[in-house]
Each structure stands twice: as C-alpha cells, then as structure tokens.
C-alpha cells in the first residue's frame, strides 16, 4: 500500500458538474435521499426517545392517512399550501423575491372576514361569497402591487419591501380583531356561527371539496399560463435576463407590475379560501408560515405547477405526521420538528447529487 501511495497523487474523490441526468436517475437519487433521511431519523429517535422507529413512522403515516377525516385535512392543507405556492411562482420565476405572500394572504383573509362581519346575512350567500372573493383578491393585489411599483420605478429591494408589508398586514389584522371583538380579547370567534353567511358551501357533503377543486383548477391554469401564454413567456425572459427583455422590447416595468398583480391576486384568493372555506374566522396566524414554506415548495418543483403538487404533498405530509407523533408519543413538538428538519435537509441536499457527480479515483490506476 505504501508503495502504491508514492505514485498515486490523485484525490480519492473529486466533483464534476453533470451536463445531463436521466429523469429516472434523478428520482432514484431523491428516493435514496428519503430512505437515508428515514435512517438518520431512526437513529435520532432511538437515541433520544427509546421508541421503535418503525412504530414512529407508522404513526406518522397514520397521521396523514389514518382516517377519512385525516385524509380530508391532509388534502385541505395540501390545497392551501399549493395555492400559495402557485401564487409566489410567477414572481419567483421573474426573479422577484416575493417574501410577502404571508401578508398578501392575511390581507385577503381580512377583506373576506370584514365582508362577513359587516354584511352578515343582508344579501344572498352566493352574492356575499362573490363580494368576499372580489374584496380578498383586491386586497392581495394592493399588497402585491405596492412593492412591485416601487421596484419597477425606483429599483427598491423587493425582499425587504415585501417582508415589511407582512408586518403591516399582521398589525392591521390585530387592529380589526380588537375592533370587532367586544370583550377586547385578541381572539376572534367563528364569524356568523348561526347563519353561516359567507361560509363556503359543502360540496357533496364534503366540507373542503370546494377549496380543493378550486386549487386543482388553478394549478392547471397556472401551468398553462406559465408555459403556453405570451405573458408567461415574458415572465421567463425577464427572469432569465433583463437585458434580453429590453433588447427585444419587453416593457420590464409593466411585466413586473402585472406579474405581481397576479401573484397578489392568487394570495388574496388563498386568504379567501382560508377564511370562507376553512376557518370561518380570522387570526394573525391565518397563513401560519405557509407564505414562506410556499417558496420552498415552488423552488423544489423548479416552478413547475404540476410538480408542485408533489412537493407540497411532501411538506404537508411531513407536517401532519410530525404533529401526530408529537401527540401519540407525548413527545415534545420539537422532536417532531427535528425529524421534519432532517427529512427536508436530505431532500434539498440531494439536489447537489443530481447536479454534480462524484468521481472516485479510477480502479485501474490503483492497480498500477
């Protein structure tokens, strides 16, 4: 061996960029990453809790698929996360770092809640729903268009801008809750509990089916819009290179503003679905961090709305599973978060192995 070492100076491993990878190989790598993640999670579970990892995983799956109700909740959560992911996708594809989905959703939700609170049953429910939908979308659009306008005209930093707008939205929601709740409590109860005004109707007796169908249709529309429409093409060009966009005569300002109108509108819609179709109330935690999780969903899917169904399923499945473990084993929520963190780390990390290749020192030279 020492004899060999004299002649071989090549490092054991070195990294090269892959030019192309077959799609099934990429998915094989992803699958391997999940398996590896589960293994690492098992080690963590055994060391800190003494539970049987397989039992824990089983509970995790049960958390998502254990009963019909759980499946519906999973689908509902999936639909909401997907909806917000769809909203941020055009912006991110344009390289407009919209970190304000959270606020845009909140404002949308607030607009819906306000309509429910003030209009009550003074108009037919279908009309109220339309008014709420319109108000929510308008709210989202306003929250989206402000940073876009400043970015387009004065080149302000949209990440900071959108982020700050989130806080404004949160404070607005707090303010209105204080205004609406007579006791001064900071928690708003269910609005129109008795009349059900402004509640999204059940479809075939299923509570969330309406939400899910709307998001499903939206997914297809967004896919077609980005891939086959002229506006979608302009978004891609502006995102890839502003210089090219200028060169071929695209009005970059217009595209930025138009795209953020779309992004904000879909966020507003998500707010409407959350208030009218899910919670029937409003709170500061309406979006619950989904505005940020959505960014991950969108990037992981490389901005493809159809693939985003899978990535958002993955995230929601992990979250549901984690909270199930926490209750079933009376574990601290943090343990569940650690497990989710490990799995997401592996999933994102495996992209490295999809883009790069690790070469081992070749065998034949070792023989020399």
């Amino acid at each position, binding site marked *: 061996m020492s004899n060999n070492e004299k002649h071989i100076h090549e490092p054991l491993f070195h990294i090269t960029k892959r030019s192309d990878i077959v799609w099934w190989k990429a998915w094989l790598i992803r699958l391997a990453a999940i398996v590896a993640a589960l293994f690492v999670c098992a080690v963590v579970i055994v060391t800190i809790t003494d539970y049987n990892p397989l039992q824990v995983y089983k509970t995790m799956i049960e958390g998502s698929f254990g009963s019909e109700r759980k499946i519906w909740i999973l689908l509902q959560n999936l639909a909401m996360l997907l909806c917000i992911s769809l909203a941020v996708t055009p912006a991110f594809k344009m390289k407009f770092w919209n970190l304000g989905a959270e606020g845009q959703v909140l404002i949308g939700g607030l607009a819906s809640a306000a309509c429910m609170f003030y209009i009550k049953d003074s108009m037919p429910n279908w009309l109220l729903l339309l008014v709420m939908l319109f108000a929510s979308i308008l709210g989202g659009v306003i929250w989206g268009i402000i940073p876009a306008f400043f970015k387009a005209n004065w080149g302000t930093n949209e990440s900071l801008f959108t982020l700050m707008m989130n806080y404004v939205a949160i404070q607005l929601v707090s303010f209105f809750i204080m205004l609406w709740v007579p006791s001064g409590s900071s928690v708003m109860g269910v609005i129109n509990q008795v009349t059900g005004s402004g509640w999204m109707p059940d479809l075939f007796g299923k509570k969330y089916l309406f939400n899910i169908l709307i998001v499903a249709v939206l997914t297809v529309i967004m896919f077609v819009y980005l891939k086959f429409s002229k506006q979608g093409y302009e978004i891609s060009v502006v995102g890839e*290179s502003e210089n090219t966009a200028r060169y071929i005569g695209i009005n970059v300002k217009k595209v930025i503003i138009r795209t953020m109108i779309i992004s904000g509108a879909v966020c507003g819609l998500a707010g409407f679905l959350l208030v009218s179709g899910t919670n029937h109330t409003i709170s500061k935690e309406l979006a619950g961090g989904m505005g940020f999780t959505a960014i991950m969903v969108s990037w992981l899917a490389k901005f493809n709305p159809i693939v985003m169904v899978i990535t958002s399923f993955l995230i929601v499945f992990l979250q549901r599973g984690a909270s199930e473990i926490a209750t079933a084993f009376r574990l601290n929520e943090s343990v569940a978060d650690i497990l989710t963190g490990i799995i997401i780390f592996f999933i994102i990390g495996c992209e490295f192995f999809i883009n790069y290749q690790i070469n081992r020192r070749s065998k034949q030279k070792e023989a020399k």
Partner: protein
Amino acid sequence: MCVGSAAIELRGITKRFGNVVANSNVSLSVYGGEILSLLGENGSGKTTLMNMISGIYYPDEGQIFINGEEAVIRSPKDAFKYKIGMIHQHFKLIDVFSAAENVVLGLKEKGKYDIKTVSERVAEISEKYGFDINPDKKIYEMSVSEKQTVEIIKVLYRGADILILDEPTAVLTPQETQKLFTVLRKMREDGKAIIIITHKLHEVLSLSDRVAVLRKGEYIGTVETAKTDEAELTEMMVGKKIELNIERATPENPQDRLVVKNISCKNREGVNVLDEVSFTARSGEILGIAGIAGSGQRELLEAIAGLQHIDGGEIIYNNPKTGSADNLRDKTPLQIRELGVRLSFVPEDRLGMGLVGNMDIVDNMMLRSYRKGKSFFLERKAPKNLAETIIEQLEVVTPSAATPVRKLSGGNVQKVLVGREIAAAPTVLMAAYPVRGLDINSSYAIYNLLNQQKKNGVAVIFVGEDLDVLIELCDRIMVIGSGRVAGIVDGRTADKNKIGLMMTKTQGGNENEQ
C-alpha cells in the same frame, strides 16, 4: 529527476465534462527559456488544459511533471507552489487598490506589511523585464494594457517560472501587443517557460519558438515555428486546408440607409462615451467599426437599437419602402419596430442579451416574433420550423431544437443568434464582435452570412476587433477612439498600422500615452 528535463510536462491528460471530452490524452512539454504557443480552434480544449496546470481543474487521467518530478496540482495554491502562474483573459484585480497592493493581495509573507518595499520590488521587476508601470497607481485609473501588466507582475512577484497567458492580445492594440511581446522575449532570455494561448497566427509565428496544436481536445503535434508557416498551422488546427481570403463584392447601388448625426451620450459617471459621432450606413455595404474595446462601440449600437438614451444628435432611418425618413432617437425597440424599421442587432453579449441561455433554440427563436398575432397564447410552430431551418442551413451542431442554447458551443450559439436576426429580413444589420471567440470555420460561416446580407441590399454595420478581418471584409471602416470618430477609411486601401494609430491617437490625449 535528471538534468535537462522539461519545466513542465503533461502525459496523457484527459478531462471530461459530463459526456463532453474537453481534453483527450494530451501530452506536451515546455522547457525553460522558450515560448510555446498553444494553438487551436475554439472548443479545442486549450483553456481547459491550462486550467489543469494552474489548479482550477483536476485531470481525470494523466500526470503532470514539473522539472521531472510528478506534481499534484489540486488548487491554484498548489500551482503557485510549483511556480506556475496564469494570466487569465479576465483580470482579477481590485479596482480601488493600487498596483502594488494588488500584487501582494492574498500573499502570506513573513514580517510586517510594508507596501513601500513591495513597490520597490515591483519597480525592480518592471525594470528587469521592461514593463512600464507605476506601482502606486490605482487599478481604476489604468488602461487595459496596464491592468494586464499588473497581472503579469503579480505572478512574477510570486516567483513564477512557468507563465501561462490566455489570449493576452485579445484586448490590446497592435502597438501594445508589440510591447507585450518584447517583455515576453525578455522573460524567455531570463529562462522562464512561457505558454501563450492565442488564435492569431501571425502572432504565433512572430513570437514563439514552438507551436503545439490541439484539435477537438486532442493533441495534434508540436512544430518548430521556424520550420512552419500559416498554411501548415491552419491545416493542423482545422484538419483541412481552408482559404484565408474573405470575399468582398463591390457594393451595388448603395443608398444612404441610416444617417447618424452628431450623437452624444454620457455614462453614469458623466463621462462622454459618445461624443458627436456622425456617419452614414449605406445599403449593400459593410461598414466596419474599429476601435479598442470600450471606446463607445456598444453604446453606439445600443443607441441605434433604442436601448441607450442619447443626450444629443439624431438617428435618421430612410425607409426604402415608404421613402420616409424617421428619427429613431428616444424611441424604444418596440416603437422602432412599429415604425416599420427592419433593424436587426447581434449584440456583443450573446447569452446575456441576444439570447436566453436557459431556453431552448425554439423559444429563443420566438424572442423577436412571439408577439405576432392577437392570441393570448404562444404560437410555437413557426419558431420551431425556423429553428430547424437554421440548424440545417447554418449547420448548427446540437442534439435537437429543444436543447438549451447555453449547452451549445460558442460558434453554434452565434449561428443561432445571427440566424434569427437575419431571418427577420432586415434592412439594417448591426453585429458587435460577431466572431469573437469563434473558431476559423465558424468565423467564415459568419462572414459569408454578412456578405450575403450585403448582396441582398442590407446595410451591414460590423464592429470588429481583428483589424485583418475588418480590412478584408469591410467596404469602409470607421475608426473610433474614446467615443469620437477618428476617421473613416476605405477598406480596400486601408493600412493596418495606420488604423492602429488612429485607434490610439484619440484615446491618448489627456491620459498617459505610451
């Protein structure tokens, strides 16, 4: 191991990027006290090979020997240890630092940081090899040639015995090139081993002792410069003999198509980048624009294309169809198009402006035409046909029309871009450095395309850097320096040295002229 071994020797070097073999089994050696030219078309693997010597890449197979000892060069730091220094095409200097500060940057020397001693040593090196540099001058105040000098001194200061220069003359004027060559010859006398990468055959012949030729990643052979000529080298390089003459037809019935009158514009710092520029581009004619890089060529073309705001002057387009004369000043590219001006533009920055690297060929074809029709949706059929036509007619090497253009080689990228711009049936065609970085075959393909447009009555504006090409291709050549027109000469009677002088004359003035 033994006396008289090569300063650096490569044995069986192979490097792959994915499926592409950049270097395959390359073996060559350079001795101290000699200049080796590394010659090859674009994509022949010259830069990759040199990057492996300087520690940027690691070879997949093969060995490198330095003075007879096998060497492992895993990083630029290792390369430095073996006294190898590379001068890259793109300078890696810090603008706000002085020459001396840049020279010692990143160097861990024992003792106190003493910039004075450094300056003295820099001056010492300068004197030894005949550089002309002020060690205390800041980089941002320097000309391109001075910056290059700093890069060279940087590696000499680190004690390099093996110097690699990647296309060092690409950014220099003929006069500056001669100065560089004098310096390199002095280094040779001093016993340094020098490898110079270049495309320009006459430089190879005038400077180097031996020439190593690569073709498509393979090592073809090394010849002694004294025993070879341009024809042989070209043949080694491309594998078959090609005519060096560029065709030039007499313009037929030239008419004033684009009249530029006294245009001026300032850059962000308020410096005049264009200063009262006036010229006329005629149909059926190729107008060349010569000048040192950054003399206002880009701003001039972008002003005409509606991408650059101008402070004064006008740009008049004589429409051959309607006979009207339109002023294009302060119009956006879209407005210019809507006026019926058929203006095509091949920008200098191909993948950053002319094309979108991550999009496939079909989607890149649409850039110009996607707005056509009232439909909300894109129409991909016509662009697809266009892509296929261009691939076939211009012999673009690509797996398919659905391949992202960034994966194509430089020449093929350019064919896609020029092909698209020509397909728009222009009356004015502007091309900025259309053959930069292209191999000889692709360059000629581009010249032919431009000539064809000229015969079709298009007013062609060609911004070039190789004076030989400009003189052979263009009917008239406008020379610009520091944003001013230094003169317009007839391409048929132009003299290379005279143009070179015109390029530098206006540039000097207040700056230090060498």
